[in-house]
């Protein structure tokens, strides 16, 4: 069963060097409360799996700027000048991924798959050191599963069973990451004592370990 905790309590699950998945696309649907608490600690050397490294002063971007991320597995760093600076200076490892391949790797990690085959990246740097497998006369790259110690995701709506639902374009990676991590923490804007309408649930509560009352979220 899902447990209700505060963001400060959530920080006690973290250790140096863990692999973290954090949901969100730039600022949209990006959890921030646990990140703000992490910034108050000495914890560091995390491997970040996320769509992007945000902006310098928002959500995931703040972890980069605080020097807490040793490696970022993301599709885009261009909106955070600090990630670019650290990368060019050789102070952070950045493993850039095509966004759709990143999404499928996260899915594979949570779905018990040994990887996925995609035509994306064939003939580019992305294919370096990866296996190419031919199916039906066409070449595909083998992209391996991703797994995390902890996932921190945003949800617009949650119920006391841990079920999650989303408004607008906030579902992005938040809907994919919960099955792919050992510990799943969801920051939800509206938590209801009544069950959510089962027809509208996007993430089943069995994937969610901890719920944080997220309050208002999001800026444009």
């Amino acid at each position, binding site marked *: 069963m899902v447990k209700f905790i505060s963001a400060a309590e959530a920080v006690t699950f973290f250790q140096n060097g863990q692999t973290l998945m954090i949901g969100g696309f*730039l600022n949209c649907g990006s959890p921030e409360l646990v990140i703000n608490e992490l910034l108050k600690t000495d914890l560091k050397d995390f491997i970040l799996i996320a769509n992007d490294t945000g902006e310098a002063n928002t959500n995931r971007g703040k972890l980069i700027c605080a020097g807490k991320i040793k490696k970022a597995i993301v599709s*885009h760093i261009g909106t955070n000048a600090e990630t670019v600076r650290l990368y*060019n200076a050789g102070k952070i490892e950045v493993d850039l991924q095509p966004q759709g391949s990143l999404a499928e790797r996260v899915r594979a990690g949570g779905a018990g798959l040994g990887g996925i085959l995609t035509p*994306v990246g064939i003939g580019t740097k992305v294919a370096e050191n990866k296996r190419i497998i031919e199916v039906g006369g066409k070449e595909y790259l083998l992209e391996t599963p991703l797994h995390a110690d902890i996932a921190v995701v945003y949800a*617009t709506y949650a119920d006391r069973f841990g079920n999650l639902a989303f408004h*607008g374009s906030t*579902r*992005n990676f938040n809907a994919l990451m919960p099955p792919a991590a050992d510990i799943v923490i969801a920051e939800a804007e509206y938590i209801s004592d009544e069950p959510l309408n089962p027809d509208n649930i996007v993430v089943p509560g069995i994937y969610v370990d901890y719920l944080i009352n997220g309050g208002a979220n999001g800026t444009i």
Partner: protein
Amino acid sequence: MELSKEQIQDTIARRVAKELRNGDVATLGIGLPTKAVKYLPQDINIIIQSENGVLGVGCYQDENNRDCHITNAGGFGVTLNLGGCFLDSLMSFSMMRGGHIDITVLGALQVDAEGNLANWCIPGKYTPGMGGAMDLVVGTKKLIVAMEHTAKGAPKIMKKCTLPLTAVHRVNRIITEKAVFDVASDGLVLKEISPYSSIEDICASTAADFRIELPQ
């Protein structure tokens, strides 16, 4: 004739708008490609997909419809058109990779005579990352590169791209403020010359060879 930056962009956006057909499902890159929408004729309605998970992107939000949870891939607040819906990142990219997007318009750092595209990395200088571009160009039915013809005077239309590639042999058409090229199996074909340019100007600012097939 020397065009201002804004005139260059408007010229390209106007020409890109003519590529869009009623009912097309389209993905348009941030910046210049997105500008094409404002030049669409009244009777042409397209369904815009945004990689962050919006199908049926409307217009930019204003003070009457502000909602921080609906954005485009650039992070700007947008509205959802009637009949539109939201997608998670898996569905969004399945749509692209699976061949369900009719037309894609993207910018480029370089494009070449073999239809190769480079738009995510200048080694050692500028590496924003590929974002969704690689998935998008692999799956789309039609790929149009819309870009300024040169970068600070240097050609961007190459014999062979020198920058890291986004995808191989995927570009169908190149639209700049000077010209429209098609990518054929034997190389580039010049199809249109902009009123602001000339054959001499295009030859001088294009690094790739091309044959000429202008409409009569």
